[in-house]
């Protein structure tokens, strides 16, 4: 059985989808069987959401509308869980990423 899901979320974390948030994001993505991808625009380019190298390469700063899509088993759950993580600001209090 296969399914597909897609949604968007605004990154509000103060440094965006960067080092530490990316670690959490890719770790969560890897818990799903579905293929998951992210993009900064509806028409791509799409990056593998399970690869931190690719997610970092997307260079998504705060204020970016992040597009997340998944296909395959549990696609809906994967998209929902990842959107939720972004909306929770990656469960960070962000004090360690304050700039000078």
């Amino acid at each position, binding site marked *: 059985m296969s399914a597909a899901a897609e949604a968007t979320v605004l990154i509000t974390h103060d*440094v965006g989808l960067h*080092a530490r948030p990316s670690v959490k994001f890719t770790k969560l993505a890897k818990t799903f069987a579905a293929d998951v991808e992210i993009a900064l625009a509806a028409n791509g380019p799409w990056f593998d959401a399970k690869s*931190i190298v690719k997610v970092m390469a997307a260079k998504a700063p705060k*204020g970016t509308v992040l597009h997340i899509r998944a296909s395959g088993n549990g696609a809906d759950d994967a998209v929902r869980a990842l959107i939720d993580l972004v909306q929770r600001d990656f469960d960070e209090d*962000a004090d360690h990423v*304050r700039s000078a």
Partner: protein
Amino acid sequence: MRIEGVPASAGYAEGPLFDLDRPPAVYAGKATAAEEKTALEAAIGKAVSRLTAMVEAADSDAAGILEFHIAMLEDDALSGPAFAAIASGRTADVAWRQVLDAEIAGYEASDQDYFRARATDLRDIRDQVLRALTEDGGSTAPSGAILCGEDIAPTRFLETDWSHGGGIALKAGSTASHVAMLARSRGVPMVVGLREPPASLAGMALLDAEHGSIVLAPSPAEIGAFRQSSSSFAARQGMAQRFLARPAVTRAGTAVRVQVNIADPSDVDAIDIATCDGVGLMRTEFLFGKTLPDEETQYRAYRKVLDWAGDKPVTIRTVDAGGDKPVPGFTVEEGNPFLGLRGIRLSLARLDIFRVQIRALLRAAPHGNLRVMFPMISMADEYERAAALFAEEQTALVARGIAQKVPPLGIMVEVPSVAIAPEGFAGVAFFSIGSNDLTQYVMAAARDNAAVAHLNSVRHPAVLRLIGSVTAFGRENGIPVSLCGDAGGDPAAIPSLLEAGLRDLSVAPAQLAMAKAAIADVSV
């Protein structure tokens, strides 16, 4: 020999120099591609297990960085292309370097400081594996050494024992790097951007990371002067901390309100509200990055700061884009942006964007002691139009049954026309003097131009006279006056500001203790 640089983490260090850029040992190639692949796999594994061991001993900031390195090392997106390069005839070290250098180049090409700074992490990841490949564990610096080189890897910082002092002096480097952040939180002195490379990296050196310089092969006189500055810095720091928790009072017993300037709602996470009198300036430009923020995003940002401040006032400045702060899709290209469409002028020209911010502010107002001010006001008509927009949006929110409140509305005093003729603004709720812009407009010296930096002094009599007359006008007319420019946190400027009549300053959070200490030394 003295070399100037940029301070990245304040403090002083005296110790032996240690060269960070000594060439690594040479990798011995293997007979077959299969052996090369095994060697690379083993080296990556070794690097990961070294990092994992370091995570256990690290605090949460450091652990976050190490976990990021581990995740990168474990990603097939790095090892896969390296294995492919080995299959096509490269040795393990060349293959790994080739893949990582391509990634590094991508980060270095970024137009954002944060991503350019990540190139250092990638070089660290590259070198950890190369080090494991050559079995060179990396020699450690002697205790208390000043680490000197092109740049420093975060793991090198974390491996170093800083308990006996020491510091960092870099030719490249960035004040936004992970290492600079760690150095500041641990109090390790660090200077970046040295103007020239040190001629020799042997012997003793003196690192002054308060002003940004390193002295190589110091003379006895230089050592004496350095130790004096160093102990005076330690004494000032220790003393300032004692002032942090107390209300600011001058030597004559005059109370001075000291608030903080913030740029991002998360800034307040690191500040104890008990140590300040509120937020004298919350900038909102940070919300206007790549995309324009919607009403909900802004409302949540304002709420966060209001919730943190409790009963204390929070003064939010409506978006001050333009000038040296361009926002794509909002500001316009201009030949002379500091004299162009910036601050309130731009907001009034783009009502679609301004109204969104006004609605978010109206909705946030019932949740705390909010005050709102407009930047770059030069005529009373601008204030009146902005205030009328608040009234209009309030009516619309009331019609929709949404909770709201019109906060006290004030203005920034930063354009000379307002400072010279404040009588046109007798109806505003408060004045906040923006000393940076007021100074650059009075002195006709752009504040982003180093060639005219010597003209840009808030202590010029012309600037101080304007500050004094605005403060007097406020006192006579019952309009509170504060100051939120950099001068407010500058111990050298504070006596003049208090003498000009100001009793309300807003400073960067890091300057709070030093500002209170400086106030205690003034006799007005």
